[in-house]
């Protein structure tokens, strides 16, 4: 074998604490190494060109690159050697940056370690074999989980790209949190007016199948060929008949039903249509409050329904869909702010969340757009906004910034002034984070044009005082003085967290999630839409806090990823999968038992039972290889011999 070794300086990142030239020199003494060099930037164009040149000039049939982590540039250098005519699996990398030069300054130790890691790579490479990828068909349909603005955008872009879309929404209507907002910053245009048309497009697009009031039950398969089980929760209304006329909601006697869409600021009926622009505009019965379902007597809605759509005996339904790719856009929920006992822990009616305030501001809200205090319906004159409630607060396990609160608080202050001209707004803030386009100008307007009083500091205590007002005690850290404000209404900018059930969904998708339940992207900077599971992409807040424009952008980005994936008729399967040596296999069945993916089956070959790997199902974990006593099943590119070669290189005394 003829191996070429390239020790990357990575500028001074590696060369700063590793003697690259010396490592190259040592590498030349390793078996089969016929060429070694130490370029300045191996991943840069000239660096890659040098590798290609060396492959031709020295007739190399294997290459070792010692540089950064293979998790960073393995794909890059695989393409490089491929361009020079080698099989991409005849490349090995030694991680001498993250694992050597960056974690210690001892030049001697680092150089020695780097040389050893190169030796590991060489020994492994000497046992490498060219691997050929197999190809398989792609089912060009996509599943979008979550019908918020990010999911809607992803669905529409995919559908416009000619891809059939299955859109699953947990609630009775799509629209997500944005549908609950009154106006949007920084332009203060009506949320419903800009989102509404998109929602209608979803309903009317011939490529989109919408399952509202449904949840993903189970996901199996792999990129290109996922099988998804969807649970259509019972609405007790046959949507194929329901026209959304609303007759039932007018007659329903259970008028005390808490209104989830209005964030519990108002009440609704047991049978209800979330809001006038709901998509789909269909009625849903809330079984906790429906008298018919609870007591078995009432049946008013059934009587008044002109199409006879009411079905009290309706049950959940499981639907199976086949798709080739999945976009997760499950959004967020507000954290449970009642842990803040100093703010009353939810006991004071006039201390509400910002999302509830949106509903009070909204013309389609419970107060028809007239701001009224929940306690006595009076119009508040002094409104205090408290930011960072459940954001940037370690004491409640929420150290991260929720990103958009600064902006919507400014927006709400402005809207408050528009609604109640003789009102006065105060904002307690830690820092104002307004990095977006036109954002800082916007917060300035809130202060300068609308006279909102911004107080830099946290609120220590909120309590009701004599004449039904709230006393808000805090500190002005700029003046270094305690402040106390009498408020008619207190609005808490409650921090966001990943939506309920995100971890469970992540398990089903086999993607990772962080300690707050946000889904993990493949690479924080370079792969913000991809996940570690091929064919699964992320959009919106489920991946990390972001505002509407960013969510929409990521929705489109996810769609672009899907369309790119579907631009190929066949996908290449990763050849790094298990292979059975049928001569050695004694059909003991241990591998079949262990395989987490059921990727191994028993087949009859010349009258003998043998194990066989289903190539498209095998994910390449290698559990079978470490289970097979006679080593008959080997994981390509991580065979016993390849790992043994590395062990022997290190331990040979």
């Amino acid at each position: 074998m003829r191996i070429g070794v390239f020790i990357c300086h990575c500028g001074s990142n590696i060369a700063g604490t590793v003697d690259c030239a010396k490592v190259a020199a040592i590498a030349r003494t390793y078996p089969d190494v016929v060429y070694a060099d130490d370029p300045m930037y191996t991943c840069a164009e000239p660096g890659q060109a040098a590798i290609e040149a060396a492959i031709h000039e020295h007739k190399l049939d294997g290459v070792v690159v010692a540089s950064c982590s293979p998790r960073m540039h393995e794909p890059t250098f695989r393409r490089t050697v491929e361009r020079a005519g080698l099989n991409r699996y005849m490349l090995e990398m030694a991680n001498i940056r993250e694992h050597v030069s960056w974690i210690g300054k001892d030049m001697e130790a680092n150089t020695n370690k780097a040389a050893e890691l190169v030796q590991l790579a060489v020994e492994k490479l000497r046992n490498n074999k060219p691997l050929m990828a197999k190809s398989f068909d792609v089912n060009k349909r996509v599943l979008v989980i979550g019908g918020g603005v990010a999911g809607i955008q992803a669905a529409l872009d995919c559908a416009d790209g000619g891809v059939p879309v299955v859109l699953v929404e947990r609630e009775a209507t799509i629209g997500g949190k944005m549908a609950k907002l009154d106006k949007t910053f920084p332009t203060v245009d009506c949320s419903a007016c800009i989102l509404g048309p998109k929602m209608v497009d979803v309903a009317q697009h011939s490529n989109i199948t919408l399952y509202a009031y449904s949840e993903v039950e189970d996901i199996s398969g792999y990129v290109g060929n996922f099988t998804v089980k969807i649970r259509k929760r019972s609405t007790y209304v046959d949507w194929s008949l329901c026209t959304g006329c609303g007759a039932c909601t007018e007659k329903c006697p259970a008028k005390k039903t808490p209104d989830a869409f209005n964030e519990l600021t108002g009440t609704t009926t047991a049978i209800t249509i979330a809001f006038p622009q709901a998509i789909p505009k269909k009625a849903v019965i809330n079984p906790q409050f429906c008298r018919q379902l609870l007591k078995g007597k009432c049946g008013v809605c059934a009587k008044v329904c002109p199409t006879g759509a009411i079905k009290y005996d309706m049950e959940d339904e499981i639907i199976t869909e086949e798709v080739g790719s999945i976009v997760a856009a499950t959004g967020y929920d507000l954290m449970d702010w009642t842990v803040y006992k100093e703010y009353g822990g939810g006991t004071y009616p006039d201390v509400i969340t910002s999302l509830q305030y949106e509903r009070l501001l909204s013309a389609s809200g419970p107060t028809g757009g007239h701001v009224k205090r929940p306690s006595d319906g009076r119009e508040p004159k002094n409104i205090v906004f408290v930011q960072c409630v459940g954001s940037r607060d370690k004491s409640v396990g929420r150290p991260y910034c929720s990103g958009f609160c600064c902006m919507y608080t400014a927006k709400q202050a402005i809207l408050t002034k528009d609604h109640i001209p003789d009102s006065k707004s105060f904002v307690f803030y830690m820092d104002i984070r307004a990095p977006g386009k036109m954002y800082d100008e916007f917060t300035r307007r809130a202060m300068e044009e609308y006279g909102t009083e911004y107080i830099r500091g946290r609120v220590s205590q909120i309590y009701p005082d004599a004449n039904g007002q709230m006393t808000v005690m805090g500190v002005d850290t700029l003046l270094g003085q305690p402040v106390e404000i009498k408020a008619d209404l207190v609005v808490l900018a409650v921090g966001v967290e990943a939506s309920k059930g995100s971890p469970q969904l992540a398990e089903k998708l086999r993607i990772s999630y962080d300690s707050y339940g946000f889904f993990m992207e493949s690479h924080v900077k370079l792969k913000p839409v991809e996940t570690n599971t091929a064919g699964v992409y992320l959009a919106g807040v489920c991946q990390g806090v972001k505002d509407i424009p960013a969510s929409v952008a990521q929705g489109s980005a996810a769609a672009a990823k899907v369309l790119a994936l579907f631009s190929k008729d066949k996908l290449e399967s990763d050849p790094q999968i298990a292979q059975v040596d049928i001569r050695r296999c004694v059909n003991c069945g241990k591998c079949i038992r262990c395989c987490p993916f059921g990727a191994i089956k028993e087949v009859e070959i010349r009258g003998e039972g043998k194990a066989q790997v289903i190539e498209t199902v095998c994910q390449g974990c290698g559990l079978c290889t470490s289970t097979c006593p006679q080593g008959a099943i080997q994981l390509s590119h991580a065979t016993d011999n390849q790992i043994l070669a590395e062990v022997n290189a290190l331990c040979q005394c």
Partner: protein
Amino acid sequence: MTIFALPCEGTLDMARVNQDLGRYTKIDGVTYDEAGVTITADGKDHRFCMTDYAQGKCYGCTTPSAVLADTLLGQPVKVDGAAGTPPELALLDSMSLDERLAFWRGQMDRCLRCYACRNACPMCVCRDYCVSDSRDPHWMTQEDSAKEKLFFQTIHAMHLAGRCTGCGECQRACPVGIPIMALRQQIARAVAQLFDGYQPGLNPDEVPPLLGYEVVEKNIHERDWK
């Protein structure tokens, strides 16, 4: 498959029997009594009482009658008490780490690398495809060193982890009498301790512990790195 069984009253440790018989040219015959046998070799009688000359495993045997049989004749044998530490393992337990290393050094120097232990093992399913003499995968060299030989014993022990029923054939078959049971016994002890007293070979429907898992392991705990 059909299983026929009789309750077992113990079998002889032929290694020790031969030791006491010493050199002989011919065995004339064997006479049995309740408690033992008398072997007449070259006209000389040697009595071997079962209680002194049984195989090590027989003393701690808790299953004299078959645990599974289609035809099981005779009365079930009463066993009182649970098995203690087997003698081979007890020997190792009595040593320090360094002594154990030295012990295996000595034992492995005596190993002929004849693989009789492997061939006698009913649980060795690999048969002709043992990794000890394959090049792909190439786990072992053919070098006749204590290291390689001990490594083979480890391979065998590990392949038997959670499967070895302690039948002792490996050790019985060893021509130089190395107490290699100890390695299997140590694993058996670990498996029993980790998996609620699991003993291989009692219930055909059980899953061997190393071919399964629990999401939360009752007896395996995360170590802290403070």
